[in-house]
């Protein structure tokens, strides 16, 4: 079986027709992982037992001629910040080394209930903090398209595994760009659903007002199929929305003619790589050919998105990460004589430099005397950033912009300068702060052969229109 071009429909059809068993399909992926992932390092743990039990169950359904669920036999991978029973959950951190969660995240449970075969857990930046996957305690992930370059972060393993055909689809998480940016760097599709659209139950929290769970896939249709399975209210997550879930896959067949496409001028300023700019302009020309109405819009507070994000995200992280204290799970500094020494020594040994940096920054921003100047100020600017989007969406149906200012950079290129690394998220964090949905779709490559992604951003809870435009972009690439 040809794994490189295997999609969800292809995998499911092959399993349904008996061309391949779900068991053999899972084995083929494990074989490929054993060979290819030595260089890429995308998987941190394999859940072979659970995968094979599920594959056998699917094969049983096929043998009995019973109806197959929508992801029947589809091999998937899970970012290691999501709990999955029977597999370790490290969040890319030493502080959770060896931790086995006693339950499944809702997103994980929904995938398996829909027939997916869970291959294992995927590498990421520690606690999802990073833009290059160089902050994992378990080694860098390499970009499958150029092994001397980063896959992006923080969901670097999730993007790389799909790009290298080690899984048909994967789950990632996005707090400031962690799905869209690695999708762009690795040349795959990555979806940031609207805040509240997908349950976060079982997600190891980084910044709770920003964290979201979403899919990576090879095609827009596959991503829509996985999102359909993930989306919807969950009683275990009070922040999940009970708004009705649209028919994402069904609406892909509707034409894009007449849709109004906004082009935010602030996303095309200084610092944007000329080859990326040219690729996005080709996308906009293509959408005009499809009779979309393309018009400029202004998101005037865009330049404040990065400083706003790095106050809010780190403040929330400093609070969320206080639970890692050596008491209930994970690492404990065994030598410590008192409780407070145990806390400090455990956290010192368990957290990496970037996590410490962000905890310190967030604690500083929330500390007495600074709260109003930093945290409250950032929350007010967050309102302004969100109002920018709400005003733009009064005039247009979706926004089209770059995902990243540059293509995938070299390993080690930005590790010495945190501000430089943070600026990598310049086109992705505003959508995170505003809670809108976004998707990164491949739209060509640079002369050096590095993938370029284009970002389509949609209104709150209007993933359907966003994915429709994304699919039109995808169609242009092959025609």
């Amino acid at each position, binding site marked *: 079986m040809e794994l490189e071009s295997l999609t969800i429909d292809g995998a499911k059809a092959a399993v349904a027709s008996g061309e391949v068993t779900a068991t053999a399909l899972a084995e083929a992926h494990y074989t490929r992982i054993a060979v290819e992932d030595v260089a890429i390092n995308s998987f941190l743990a394999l859940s072979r037992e659970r995968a094979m039990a599920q594959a056998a169950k699917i094969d049983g359904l096929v043998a009995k001629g019973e109806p197959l669920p929508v992801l029947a036999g589809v091999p998937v991978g899970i970012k290691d910040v999501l709990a999955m029973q029977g597999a370790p959950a490290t969040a890319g951190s030493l502080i959770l080394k060896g931790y086995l969660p006693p339950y499944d995240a809702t997103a994980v449970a929904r995938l398996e209930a829909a027939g997916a075969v869970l291959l294992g857990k995927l590498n990421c930046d520690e606690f999802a903090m990073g833009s290059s996957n160089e902050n994992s305690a378990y080694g860098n992930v390499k970009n499958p398209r150029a092994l001397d370059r980063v896959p992006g972060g923080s969901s670097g393993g999730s993007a790389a595994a799909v790009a290298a055909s080690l899984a048909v689809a994967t789950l990632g998480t996005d707090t400031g760009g962690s799905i869209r940016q690695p999708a762009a760097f690795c040349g795959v599709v990555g979806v940031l659903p609207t805040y509240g659209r997908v349950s976060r139950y079982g997600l190891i929290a980084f910044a709770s007002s920003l964290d979201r769970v979403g899919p990576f896939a090879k095609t827009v249709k596959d991503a829509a199929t996985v999102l359909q399975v993930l989306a919807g209210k969950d009683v275990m997550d009070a922040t999940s929305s009970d708004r009705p879930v649209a028919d994402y896959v069904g609406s892909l067949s509707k034409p894009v003619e007449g849709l109004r496409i906004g082009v935010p001028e602030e996303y095309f300023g200084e610092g944007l790589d000329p080859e990326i700019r040219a690729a996005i302009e080709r996308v906009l020309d293509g959408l005009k050919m499809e009779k979309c109405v393309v018009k400029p819009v202004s998101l005037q507070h865009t330049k404040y998105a990065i400083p706003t994000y790095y106050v809010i995200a780190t403040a929330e992280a400093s609070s969320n990460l206080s639970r890692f204290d050596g008491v209930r799970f994970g690492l404990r500094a065994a030598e410590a004589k008192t409780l407070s020494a145990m806390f400090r020594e455990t956290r010192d040994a368990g957290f990496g430099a970037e996590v410490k940096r962000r905890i310190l920054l967030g604690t500083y921003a929330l500390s007495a005397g600074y709260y109003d100047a930093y945290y409250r100020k*950032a929350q007010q600017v967050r309102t302004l950033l969100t109002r920018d989007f709400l005003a733009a969406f009064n005039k247009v149906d979706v926004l089209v912009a770059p995902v990243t200012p540059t293509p995938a950079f070299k390993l080690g290129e930005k590790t010495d300068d945190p501000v430089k690394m943070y600026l990598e998220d310049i086109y992705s964090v505003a959508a995170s702060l505003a*809670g809108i949905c976004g998707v990164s779709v491949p739209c060509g490559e640079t002369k050096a052969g590095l993938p370029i992604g284009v970002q389509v951003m949609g209104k709150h809870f209007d993933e359907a229109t966003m994915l429709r435009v994304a699919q039109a972009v995808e169609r242009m690439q092959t025609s």
Partner: protein
Amino acid sequence: MSERAGVTIEDVRRVAELANLELTADEEPRMQRDLSAILGHIAQLNELDTSGIPAMAQVGEMLGGVAEASGAELRADAVRASLDRAMVMAAAPETDGRFFKVPKVIER
């Protein structure tokens, strides 16, 4: 927030203590340098006049999601099974099976 937010070593130590982090001697100057650079970047927010702008904690409140606040969206208060104690305790660094064990809380 000052235009040039200079963080001192003492600031770093104070915040580390608040955060229950213990920094090594070579981590301290690195963190001082990085926090100063990041806070310098964040100082851009001062360019904006935000008087009268409401603070936003998360996006639900911007979308007219007031139903939650009125209590209409609360789930039924019903007893449900919780995680199995043995499975939870199996992940603990030190336990007697019923409780999490920790080192001495107060030193005499």
